[in-house]
Every structure is written in C-alpha cells, then in structure tokens.
C-alpha cells in the first residue's frame, strides 16, 4: 500500500510521537523520502514539536500572587509603624517567648559560672579574654580531677562491697554444706569433700583479709569512710 500526501498529513502527529506500527512507519517514511512536498513539512513539524517541548515555562510575576490573594481573600490590612511595634511587643508577652528567655538566661548563667565569674563580686576584669580563658581552663581541670577521683572512689567502694558480700554468702552457705546428709554409700575411689573444705575456706578468708589490708593501705581515707 502506498500512502498519499493527505494520509501523511493526517497521521503526521502519530508518526512524530512514535505511535505508528513498524510497517506503518516504514510506509510513511517511504512516501516522505520520495515526496518533495511532504519531506519539508514532516521535518518542520518534527523540529517544531521538539522546540515547543524544550521551551521553558514563563515565570509568573511575583505581584500576580499578591493580586490573586487580594482578589480572593480580600485586601491585606495596612499596618502603621506603631501598630507593627505594638504587635511585636504583644508577641513578646507569650508563654513561648517567656520559656525561651528563661532558657537563654539559664544558659548564660551556666556559661558565666563555668567561666569563673563571681556573681557576688562581679569585676570588669573577669570579662577579659585572658582571664576568661584561665578561669575556664582551671574550672575544666578541677571538674575533670573531681570526676576522675569520684569514679576511682566508687570503684574501690564497689570492690570492697562485692568482696564482703561474697564472703557473707560463703559464710551462709558453709553451714548447709556441713549439714548431716543421708548416709551414702561410698564407692571405691571416692574421696571425702569435707576433709578438703576446711582448708579451702581458710585460704579464701586469709586471701580476702590480705586484699582488704592491701586496699586499706592503698587508700586509707576511702576505707575509713566506707566503714564509718
């Protein structure tokens, strides 16, 4: 089947948009190749469609949005300078702003305290950068030393407590171990545990006593405090 120029024109957009079947497209191209009227038209339309699809959207002027809002929701209120100031001050008297201000003040207080500024006797020299740096450095070192000492003290206390608890448990368990059991038949080669228990406990107690003495010698203050 050979296509006519009218058919080419009628189905030009389908060809441009790739909606023709493969045989239809080849028939279309066959005609266009040999037709001096259709060839430039097809080329023009193809180029035109490509150009139109790549054309950028025009930006709407910003005033258009305001004009539309004015027309639909009514004109905006004109606010004088003093009204604007009043609105601003009214905005400050809200709980949200009060919370914000309180948290800012608390933060400032913490920061100034950390930088070693005395609120009882405030001095202008305290605000000098060198003094601020020295104070902050000193506070930081003191804080680190205190926390290190606190952690090591805690460790010692927990160590002693756990040792003592362990010993108490041992002492509670021991009588039960010695409770008369039902007579059991002794099998050949079986050893009697009771004869070995006594020396083991004695050894453990001696070892614990040694450790407590050692700890007491290492940190006498802590030891004294924890038993006070």
């Amino acid at each position, binding site marked *: 089947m050979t296509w006519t120029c009218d058919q080419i*024109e009628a*189905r*030009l957009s389908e060809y*441009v948009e790739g909606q023709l079947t493969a045989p239809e497209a080849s028939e279309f191209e066959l005609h266009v190749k040999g037709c001096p009227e259709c060839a430039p038209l097809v080329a023009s339309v193809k180029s*035109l469609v490509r150009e139109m699809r790549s054309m950028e959207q025009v930006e*709407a002027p910003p005033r*258009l949005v305001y*004009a*539309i809002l004015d*027309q639909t929701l009514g004109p905006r209120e004109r606010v004088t300078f003093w009204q604007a100031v009043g609105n601003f001050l009214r905005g400050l008297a809200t709980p949200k702003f009060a919370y914000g201000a309180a948290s800012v003040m608390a933060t400032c207080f913490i920061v100034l305290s950390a930088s070693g500024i005395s609120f009882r006797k405030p001095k202008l020299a305290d605000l000098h950068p060198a003094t601020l740096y020295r104070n902050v450095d000193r506070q930081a070192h003191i804080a680190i030393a205190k926390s290190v000492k606190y952690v090591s003290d805690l460790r010692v206390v927990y160590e002693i407590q756990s040792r003592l608890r362990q010993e108490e448990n041992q002492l509670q368990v021991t009588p039960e171990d010695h409770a008369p059991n039902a007579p059991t038949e002794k099998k050949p080669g079986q050893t009697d545990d009771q004869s070995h228990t006594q020396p083991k406990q004695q050894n453990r107690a001696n070892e614990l006593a040694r450790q407590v003495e050692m700890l007491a010698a290492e940190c006498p203050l802590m030891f004294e405090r924890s038993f006070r």
Partner: protein
Amino acid sequence: MRRHTRRVYNVCYRFVGNRTEAEDISQEVFLRVYRTLASYRSAHGGFATWMTSVTRNLLIDHYRRTKRDRLTDSLDDAMPVVESKESSARRPDEQALLGELSGQVQSALTRLSPELREAVILRDLQQLEYAEIQQVLGVPEGTVKSRINRGRIELARILQHMGVRPS
C-alpha cells in the same frame, strides 16, 4: 498556590501572547475558581485539570470579547493603530524574544485559530496527556488528536511563511 499560578499564567501567556493580559486573565481564573470551588468534583479529574478547564473557558471568552473589539476597530479602519498598540504593549524582553526561535513560535501561536491553539498549547507546551486534554476541552479523543495534528501542521506553515527554518 505558586505552582498553580505558574501553570495558569503560562497557559494564558501562551494563548494571548501578552504578559499584561495573561496576568489579568490569571487573576480572573483564580477568582472564578475561588467562587466555584463548591462545584468541583474529583470525579471530573484532578484539581489541576479542572483549573485548566476553567482557564480555557475564560481564554475563549476573552478571545471572543477581543475579537468583537478587533472587528469594531477594523470597521473604524484602525487596523494600523491596533498593530502599533500591540507592538508598543510588548515589553523589551518580549521584543528580544521575538528574535529567538521560541519567540517566533510564540508569535506564530497567536496566529492560530483558538481551537487549534489551545490543543497545541496543552499538548506540546503544557505536555498534558490526551485524556486530560479531552477533559479540559470537553471533546472526544479523536477530535483532540485531530486538532493537535492540524495545529502543528498549521503552526509549521506559519513559521515557514515567517521565514523561520527548522533546525
């Protein structure tokens, strides 16, 4: 809001080819949408399609109104005056655009008949689907395709007459 404004403004600008008129019509569109919002049903398609449909109706109204004005002007033998008015109403950036291909395409678009113009704008510039264009124009899909095809061919011929060679 800005997205819708941009789309409506673009459709209007491409149709009338003049920024001031496009702004006025865009405002009318939003006013009409605001007033008739209760009549919008999602069954009629998406909100954007419905809005485009309102835009199209107002553009056609505008075309008919200005056509009457143009006829009156021509009766008064004032055609040259109209032309000079049109050229003076164009902003410098619009004048500069005319030198470019996109400007020439825009100029050629305004010479198309409104039925073909709206179909081409919706398909090639707004890149809507055939089903959406069918809803906006309220005509069968076959008619939509036929209008787009004729519109493209007509536009290509207008550009040829204007001396614009395809790249």
